[in-house]
């Protein structure tokens, strides 16, 4: 991948989620279409045609220099994320998943407006956006439903 974009991705995660620079050692960032993939294999040009995925989708490029982290990517990073983690309890999370957004009364200092990693029981469960104390969900719909079912049925 263009080393300029790679640097931008590393910087994005450093500034937004405080992910250490050395975390990325041994991992590759690969741009294909509008998706940046994270993977750990060396020979990325092994196969031509009908390649559907190249590891885990980490980010989408919305437009030039504007990235959106994926929920899969944030779940993969989990414990590396030290900033902009929003922890929700079960009742709040359920309401959030049902309504798509929620007003938060108490937000920790290390949370800023913009992309955040939503956390439950100390584990990242997906991506959200925080704006003026309102948290918006950015989880894929199937994953949102799956999590809601877990919360409803038991967990």
């Amino acid at each position, binding site marked *: 991948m263009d080393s300029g974009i790679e640097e931008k991705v590393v910087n994005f995660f450093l500034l937004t989620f405080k992910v250490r620079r050395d975390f990325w050692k041994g991992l590759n960032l690969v741009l294909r279409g509008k998706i940046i993939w994270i*993977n*750990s*294999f060396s020979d990325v040009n092994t*196969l031509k045609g009908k390649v*559907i995925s190249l590891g885990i989708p980490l980010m989408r490029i919305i437009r030039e220099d504007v990235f959106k982290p994926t929920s899969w990517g944030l779940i993969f990073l989990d414990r590396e994320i030290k900033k902009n983690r929003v922890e929700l309890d079960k009742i709040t999370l359920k309401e959030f998943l049902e309504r798509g957004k929620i007003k938060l009364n108490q937000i920790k200092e290390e949370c800023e407006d913009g992309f955040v990693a939503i956390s*439950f029981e100390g584990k990242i469960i997906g991506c959200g956006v925080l704006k003026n104390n309102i948290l918006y969900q950015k989880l894929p719909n199937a994953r949102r439903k799956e999590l809601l079912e877990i919360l409803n049925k038991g967990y």
Partner: protein
Amino acid sequence: MERYKKIIPQWESFIQAIKKGTTQTIRVNTLKITPSELKERLEKKGWRIEETEFDFAFRVKEERSIANTLEFYLGFFYIQQLTSLLVVNVLEPKPEEKILDLCAAPGGKTTFIAQLMKNRGLIVANEVNYKRQRALLANIYRLGVTNTIVTGFNGLFFPADIKFDKVLVDVPCSAQANRVYKNQKIVDLKFIKRITPFQKGLLKKAIELVKLGGIVVYSTCTFSPEENEEVIDSVLKEGKVIIEKIKLDFPCEKGIICWEGKKFDESLKLCLRVYPYHFYSGGGFIARLRKIKD
């Protein structure tokens, strides 16, 4: 199932095991969590689980589905039959190897291979069916697998540009080991007749794609010799592969060497037949082949 009475050594145990039914078993995804950590988390939430004869696997002693847990959502484990774990153990994946899983969906075996490879080396997980590709991708992402490329080729036409150290060919089959629990028609000879040429084609392709000296593991979740020994016997005749003895200490039956008047190569005894009474978790057939000629 009466059709197989002659070849199933412990027929009464077989019937009893089917009546008893299958239990939920899970494989801990050590890419994300250790077995002891997962056990502790689940037990804290009231799940009763116990160890099995397989590393990384637990048996769930509950009727409710363990898929309804945060731990499942986060990819800490995969719900998987023990027989599937056995197939991957027979493959013996090693970090830094290049492995092809020719019929990969839904990804239970692929993700276990990745786990044993410690997310190193390279796995190419191939699946031609779009719906099944979605399930495969979701499982790869959920379990945090980073060493895998997913492709969508028809397995019979997978490009021979690269050679792999090992190929797993877990072919589509009549799935008798699963159907036996579901009150479904178990033996459908018309289907078996239709699918065996496809199974032979996939195995031949797998042999083409593995490097000289490399390993091909052929597996099914069915009992019919037409889909198992007969398929292997047909490729042995071409002289490109030999069957290797499986060095695993698990209680399984040997492959058979004659069926309905047909005689197969003696070395088919080296294959494994897994019946429900072995692990109470799936069943099927496994062969480990080594390529000796291009």
